[in-house]
């Protein structure tokens, strides 16, 4: 095995210094500006993120015709909503939503890398990028979901979607029971990135 005794003890400090040096050199050489990295990060805090996906799901929960359109033609349904510009932007050029239903649970994976619908979900959480999740979810999804605290009975059909080409996927979880009186804005806060990738379900607060 390569470098079996060569794992740096100062792993994080070294990586931090290396990345800072790289960024400084790229600024100095005129490749990026001293604002470029922060520009990217600001964008993900304000424009692209799971807050968009939560709005889409909440609308699907209150409007079943919208939900049908969302599953049939995801980009045009998303375009109906007043979301920030860029929902068909980087990593959202071609998106498809799949809806959970009684007896059907969807799970999104990417066994080759970490494909993820940035405009509606932002950046993938660590668990999604982890090789263990990527490999195990393909063969034993229920066992993996159980480790996330979600028990899916054998009678429920699990659909696992491996994002191996250019389509980016997300899940419309089922509306939790007991939320009948909630407004769309109140429903949004019940929608987590984990539920929109399928390792969790939405729960009433």
């Amino acid at each position, binding site marked *: 095995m390569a470098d079996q005794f060569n794992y740096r003890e100062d792993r994080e400090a070294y*990586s931090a210094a290396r990345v800072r040096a790289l960024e400084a050199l790229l600024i100095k050489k005129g490749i990026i500006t001293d604002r470029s990295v922060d520009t990217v990060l600001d964008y993900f805090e304000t424009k692209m993120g799971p807050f968009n996906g939560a709005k889409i799901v909440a609308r699907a929960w209150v409007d079943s015709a919208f939900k049908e359109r969302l599953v049939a033609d995801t980009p045009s349904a998303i375009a109906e909503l007043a979301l920030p510009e860029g929902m068909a932007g980087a990593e959202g050029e071609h998106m498809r939503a799949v809806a959970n239903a009684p007896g059907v649970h969807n799970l999104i994976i990417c066994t080759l890398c970490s494909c993820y619908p940035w405009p509606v979900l932002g950046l993938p959480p660590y668990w999604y990028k982890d090789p263990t999740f990527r490999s195990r979810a393909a063969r034993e999804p229920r066992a993996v979901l159980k480790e996330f605290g979600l028990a899916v009975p054998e009678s429920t059909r699990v659909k696992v979607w491996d994002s191996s080409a250019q389509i980016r996927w997300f899940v419309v979880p089922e509306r939790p029971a007991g939320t009948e009186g909630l407004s769309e804005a109140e429903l949004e806060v019940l929608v987590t990135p984990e539920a929109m990738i399928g390792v969790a379900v939405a729960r009433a607060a």
Partner: protein
Amino acid sequence: MKLQHYLGGLEGLGPVSTETRVFVEPWEKRIFGIHTAMMALSTQLSLPATPSSFRTVWTWADLRKGAESLNPLDYFRFRYYEKWIGGISSYFISHGYITEAELDALTKEYYADFSKPRPSAGCAVVDARIVQYLVEGDSPKRGAAVNHAFAVGDAVAVCDVPTVEHTRLPGYLRNRTGTVETVYEGTYTYLCNTGPDGIGAAMPVYCVRFDPVTIWPGNAEPNFAIYADLYAHYIAAPAAAQQAA
């Protein structure tokens, strides 16, 4: 073959990570930002020219090739963004933007004193292009005039193409048979030419459904299905169907 391309279904890995944060260490944000800025400044995009001195192509494919070029045992030893540092640094060095010696020297300086400030420089139009890329993306979809060889419900066999650097064909699906679930309109390119692996030029893409029992006989959970979006080059009519024809 590379183990990296055959991850799906690998056994004996232990419990999954349930870490929900996107970035765990602050430096991970910075390398992510550098990668995204590079994608936005890459020359294949039809976005306005800027004074940035970045004059080459950088896409997801380049990042993936970098990570997948690692010794497979290192690939699994390093954390996600650790793999990015190596791939991105090597790219800038091999394309002559920076030298390894200056990166090593500056790393040493920041290691000794992390509070040493970064340089201040740059033109706002560079960052405007970065935002424009995030808003517009880089669609791989091409013309709609195409004859699709397969229709919804058709049985298809997955090929075992000779993958070299990079592929979009998950290893566990090779030589398996599935059923076309969706025929996507138009054609799709890929970000680079994968050589003998066979993708790059625009071609149809299909969503194909697989029964896990046929992928991992006797060793898959019951009552689930696996779906994968596959480029046309990766699939063919099953041998049985060819014989019958």
